């Protein structure tokens, strides 16, 4: 009998747990540890954030799904890992702290034979003074609750516009090292759509404040598309949309301080600026969760297991080297942790080897470097291959070959909706294949046959379809495993 423990029940952790349960006999246990009682389809938080969808449509409780499938669910957060076991037991262990199930605050050590870390990002609002919902100035759409608050504040701003008061709205990144620019881009155009629907667009000034050095960078250094017989760029494509919708982009920014009325930011040329605003949705930078690691004697070995960013070190090449020298091969393939062949990190939880978009510094030394995005499809796919590796280890033995998949082989679909409605909706639909460009395989770094950027009503249909498909899959309803990650 083997005990598999999965930390996190987001896109990666939940996918891993469902596949493990499907592939392993009931005499093996699958335990999921996650502090939130709900599963959240995060991409649709955008619609919650503009008041177009209630929170209840993007979340559902995990406990009934796990009860039905035979997954042992602990509503708790991991606080420490003992990969070598401890003096009492040689098996690896995780120390968890309950956040629910009538045990909030209690701690417990659970043993594992195989461990998957899929704890996703810690939202580091504290990195910028005054950033985020807790500081009370800017809003976020990173969680469903944040998105509910964003919708309320946006509605209040629209109400003021309806009274004839001009308003300044800002959407973007709250720090020079943020990732997930696609989400900020998407929220921008949903806000634009709401303002138009309310008939107040002319009174509103809408800024897109981003750490990207060029529009269409999306933290992946931009894309080249094959369009109408020409090689076009994501920069040209997005610029066109910004111009058409009258959204004002401010590029290469690092906000230093945010108050209730002003965002103080630095641009790549080292200049400081003050932007007065009435409504702002700014994403936080991501880091790993503060999980510690200890050796058998209880010595702190966190820095051996985790990178300084808090993400877990895996089979990537982390050798420091100039940006220009990185190769597709540096990216991990098995997601096995450094030093422990029974621990893996998948989804946002693994430490990327380097930036995909060129990192930059201002003359004042401020780093403005979009971090690499780890989107939904790769997160799910990594989780699935790690689940397969664990199943093989259990069924074939320790010599079973690891399953592999790299971000230089996996694509991402980003459907940035720019308005809702089955006949009036719209979306900028992007396929980026692969996420991490591989110049040894493709002259432009990516597959021109699949990499695409288009705008239209169909994009909205696609986003809606993905919403329903992935919630169906996550609920583990009949045939869920046939829906690709």
């Amino acid at each position, binding site marked *: 009998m083997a005990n598999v423990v999965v930390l996190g029940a987001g896109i990666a952790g939940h996918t891993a747990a469902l596949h493990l349960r499907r592939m392993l006999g009931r005499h093996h246990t699958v335990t999921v540890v996650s502090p939130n009682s709900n599963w959240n389809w995060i991409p649709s938080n955008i619609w919650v954030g503009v008041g177009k969808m209630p929170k209840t449509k993007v979340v559902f409780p995990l406990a009934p799904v796990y009860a039905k499938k035979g997954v042992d669910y602990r509503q708790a957060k991991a606080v420490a890992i003992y990969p070598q076991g401890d003096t009492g037991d040689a098996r690896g262990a995780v120390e968890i702290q309950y956040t629910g199930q009538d045990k909030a605050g209690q701690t417990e050590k659970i043993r594992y034979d195989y461990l998957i870390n899929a704890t996703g990002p810690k939202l580091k609002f504290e990195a910028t003074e005054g950033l985020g919902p807790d500081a009370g100035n800017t809003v976020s759409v990173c969680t469903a609750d944040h998105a509910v608050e964003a919708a309320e504040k946006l509605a209040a701003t629209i109400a003021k516009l309806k009274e004839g008061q*001009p308003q*300044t709205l800002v959407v973007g990144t709250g720090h020079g090292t943020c990732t997930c620019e696609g989400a900020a881009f998407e929220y921008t155009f949903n806000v634009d759509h709401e303002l138009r629907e309310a008939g107040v667009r002319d009174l509103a*000034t809408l*800024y897109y404040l981003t750490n990207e050095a060029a*529009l269409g960078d999306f933290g992946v250094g931009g894309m080249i598309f094959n369009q109408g017989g020409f090689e076009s760029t994501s920069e*040209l494509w997005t*610029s*066109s949309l*910004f*111009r*058409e919708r009258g959204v*004002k*982009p*401010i*590029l290469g920014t690092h906000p230093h301080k945010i108050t209730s009325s002003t965002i103080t930011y630095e*641009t790549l040329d080292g*200049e400081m*600026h*003050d*932007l*007065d605003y009435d409504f702002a949705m700014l994403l936080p930078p991501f880091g790993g969760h503060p999980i510690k690691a200890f050796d058998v004697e209880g010595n702190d070995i966190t820095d051996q297991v985790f990178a300084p960013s808090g993400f877990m070190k895996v089979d990537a090449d982390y050798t420091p080297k100039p940006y220009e020298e990185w190769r597709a091969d540096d990216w991990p393939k098995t997601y096995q942790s450094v030093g422990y062949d029974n621990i893996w990190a998948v989804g946002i939880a693994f430490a990327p080897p380097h930036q995909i978009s060129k990192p930059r510094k201002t003359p004042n030394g401020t780093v403005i470097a979009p971090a690499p995005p780890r989107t939904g*499809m790769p997160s799910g*796919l990594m989780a699935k291959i790690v689940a397969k590796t664990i199943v093989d280890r259990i069924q074939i033995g320790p010599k079973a070959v690891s399953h592999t*998949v790299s971000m230089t*082989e*996996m*694509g991402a*679909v980003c459907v940035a909706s720019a308005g809702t409605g089955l*006949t*009036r909706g*719209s979306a900028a*639909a992007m*396929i980026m*294949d*692969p996420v991490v460009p591989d110049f040894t395989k493709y002259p432009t770094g990516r*597959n021109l*046959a*699949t990499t*695409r950027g*288009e*705008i*239209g*009503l*169909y*994009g909205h*249909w*696609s986003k809606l*379809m993905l919403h329903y498909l992935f919630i169906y899959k996550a609920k583990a309803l009949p045939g869920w495993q046939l829906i*690709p*990650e």
Partner: protein
Amino acid sequence: MTEQNIQPSEPKPQPVLDLTRAPMPNVKTLKARYNPFSQFGRFVAFNYRIMKMVVSSGH
């Protein structure tokens, strides 16, 4: 009570990207983006590409 005429302060200039050279979609393009028939074709093509990508990543 005296009525004050409060003038909103001038917005501070921001280093906004110049988009005047970005291509503007023409009326035909804008209409096509909402034409359900052509959009259905694109919907099918888009999902076909996703499936192609899924298959090629060894799903």
